[in-house]
């Protein structure tokens, strides 16, 4: 019964194969990464010097909004869904995902969602310009007409994410090979299982938030309209009830990737496996009860600020457990520094820095100073870019030989790493200074005293952007002309079921489940 992929374009449109769909997700997310990166380049080019040079302020606002939306919902989330599609069945000994047809649907509605979102750039009144957090009433009363397209796009993305996560939960809970108990699952599977539960819980809340916006904009309701008895602050509560779990939705699968790569290149088993699982679950639980730390300036009572401040600080404990375990895994390991490991180590260092600035921001009295400044921008780029994007890059380099049976160019990979690492830090480290000095985020212009660090930051951004083109080139070159590899284990220290399969991974794997001892 084993047969290969269908021929032609139909293979990709009608496929229900988890590897094909994983590939589609990964390429789509990389395309979105380049699009969102292009928006970022427009932002940094405009901010290269004070004053207005390249774009109008209205367009600048559209760029910051679209950059955030495309990167969060188009690049990072689909990238990890793609990794989940490729790796989870191979890691738990399943022949495919549990719901292959829904898998096809959940991918193929995504291009339409982003086509709708991107088309707003060419509409009268322009694209959404109210920031990726789309606070009401800016996104309702004062929104451009294209807001309805934005809402519809978010609905489709949400549906895609919900279907994708239901599929992952169904796969992990029902299709594990005999003997693969929950506590034997690789951490990447664990983190994705927990992430999928978060997604099913909060993506509908996001859909609810945009639905209420839709009603306010078009049908005269007053959910967020003070003139009709509503409350704009309600929007922020609903949004961040989704939004805070969302940041862990983005970072937990990244934790899983790092927990696979660091043991492989340290040639030691992961230190503290079960504490990693419990820490992940603890982070997921805490993510639901800290949302208002994004809203310290709305005029909360002191007790509220104290509660959200302490609850937020509590998240540092399970996160600290994870960082401790990664470092302990490396401790006295026979470490080598191939490209995936370089990205993984950079992840641990830079993510920890982003975590510490997060702790600074969690302190309510000082957050009132940092709120909506470039300090916040620096903070979340340290966790989103050096966290999620670095780990995604590490994952691609780590599993690419298994996927396509070709070895990437190690020198080019390392070169890309160093350009990305240096470029990233030149871009975002100075933004801490800018924020502490009081530069507000989301403006097309700034006061003269911020000029020097902004220029440095822009130069860094162009360097970091160039590293991504090198990444694209390296991956394509590997697929087209990489040195073939055939041994099942690409990496000496790699563990897990996926490395027991032939390289490249056949189109159908584990048609008969493996025995896990």
């Amino acid at each position, binding site marked *: 019964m084993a047969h290969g992929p269908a021929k032609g374009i139909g293979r990709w449109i009608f496929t229900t194969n988890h590897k094909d769909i994983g590939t589609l997700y990964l390429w789509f997310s990389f395309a979105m990464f380049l699009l969102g990166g292009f928006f970022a380049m427009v932002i940094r080019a405009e901010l290269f010097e004070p004053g207005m040079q390249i774009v109008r302020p209205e367009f600048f606002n559209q760029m910051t909004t679209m950059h955030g939306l495309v990167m969060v919902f188009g690049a990072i989330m689909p990238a990890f869904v793609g990794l989940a599609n490729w790796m989870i069945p191979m890691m738990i000994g399943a022949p495919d995902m549990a719901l292959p047809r829904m898998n096809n649907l959940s991918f193929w509605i995504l291009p339409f969602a982003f086509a709708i979102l991107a088309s707003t750039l060419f509409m009268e009144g322009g694209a959404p310009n109210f920031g990726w957090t789309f606070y009401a009433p800016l996104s309702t009363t004062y929104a451009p007409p294209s807001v309805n397209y934005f809402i519809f796009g978010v609905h489709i993305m949400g549906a895609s994410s919900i279907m994708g996560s239901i599929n992952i939960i169904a796969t992990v809970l*029902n299709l594990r090979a005999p003997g693969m108990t929950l506590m034997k699952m690789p951490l990447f599977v664990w983190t994705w299982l927990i992430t999928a539960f978060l997604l099913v819980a909060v993506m509908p809340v996001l859909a*609810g938030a945009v639905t209420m916006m839709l009603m306010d904009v078009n049908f005269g309701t007053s959910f967020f309209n003070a003139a009709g008895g509503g409350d704009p602050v309600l929007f922020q509560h609903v949004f961040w009830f989704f939004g805070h779990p969302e940041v862990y939705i983005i970072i937990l699968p990244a934790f899983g990737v790092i927990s696979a790569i660091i043991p492989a290149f340290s040639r030691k088993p992961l230190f503290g496996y079960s504490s990693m699982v419990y820490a992940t679950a603890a982070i997921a639980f805490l993510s639901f009860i800290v949302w208002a730390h994004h809203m310290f300036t709305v005029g909360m009572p002191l007790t509220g600020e104290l509660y959200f401040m302490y609850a937020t600080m509590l998240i540092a404990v399970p996160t600290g457990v994870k960082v401790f375990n990664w470092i302990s895994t490396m401790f006295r390991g026979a470490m080598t520094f191939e490209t995936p490991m370089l990205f993984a180590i950079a992840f641990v260092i830079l993510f920890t820095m982003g975590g510490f600035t997060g702790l600074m921001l969690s302190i309510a009295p000082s957050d009132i100073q940092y709120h909506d400044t470039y300090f916040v921008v620096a903070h979340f780029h340290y966790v989103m870019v050096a966290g999620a994007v670095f780990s995604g890059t590490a994952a691609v380099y780590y599993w690419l030989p298994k996927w396509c049976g070709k070895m990437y160019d190690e020198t080019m990979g390392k070169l890309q790493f160093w350009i990305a690492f240096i470029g990233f830090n030149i871009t975002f480290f100075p933004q801490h200074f800018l924020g502490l000095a009081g530069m507000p985020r989301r403006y097309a212009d700034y006061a003269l005293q911020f000029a020097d660090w902004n220029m440095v930051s822009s130069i860094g951004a162009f360097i970091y952007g160039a590293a991504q083109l090198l990444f694209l080139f390296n991956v394509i070159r590997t697929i087209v002309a990489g040195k073939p590899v055939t041994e099942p284990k690409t990496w000496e220290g790699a563990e897990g079921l996926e490395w027991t399969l032939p390289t490249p991974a056949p189109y159908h794997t584990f048609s008969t489940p493996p025995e896990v001892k």
Partner: protein
Amino acid sequence: MGNSPVARLTAKLLLWAVAMFAFAVFLMPPLYDAFCELTGLGGKTGGPYRATEAGIDESRTVKVQFIATNNGEMPWDFEPLAYEVRVHPGQPQAARFFARNPTDRNMVAQAIPSITPFQAAQYFHKTECFCFNRQQLAAGADAELPLVFIVDRDLPRSVNTITLSYTLFDVTESTTEPVAKLN
């Protein structure tokens, strides 16, 4: 696969997603309103209040300040006739706001109150207020808008000053009637 474990789990998860959507749209707004009403957070005041014969507490004097703000592009002139009054808790007190429509078209406005500090919100009662209804002014017309309030005798001792702020919204274009109880 009708009744397989995968199908059952999928159905449960789908149901869960629908329930979370319903929670966000149908439960979160009323929960938020109830929570704000209970705590006074957001500084919203209650609807029309029926005065009770609880007597006047002459041992205390509370300063009540008035602020009038126009929302967005609202062109009306809008201000309190007196910027502050001193009242004893339990004593009904009248205040008036002046409003003028300087434009050449008929307009409808809605005033939205907010109390600072929010701890005082549930102790600030209004027996009569222009904010209970929409206010209509013809082009060039003006009006004195009435307000009668009572500061509750149970107002916490720590509160000596209450600021009542009205924000005036232009609702000429809006077709739906406001919900009176939310004012």
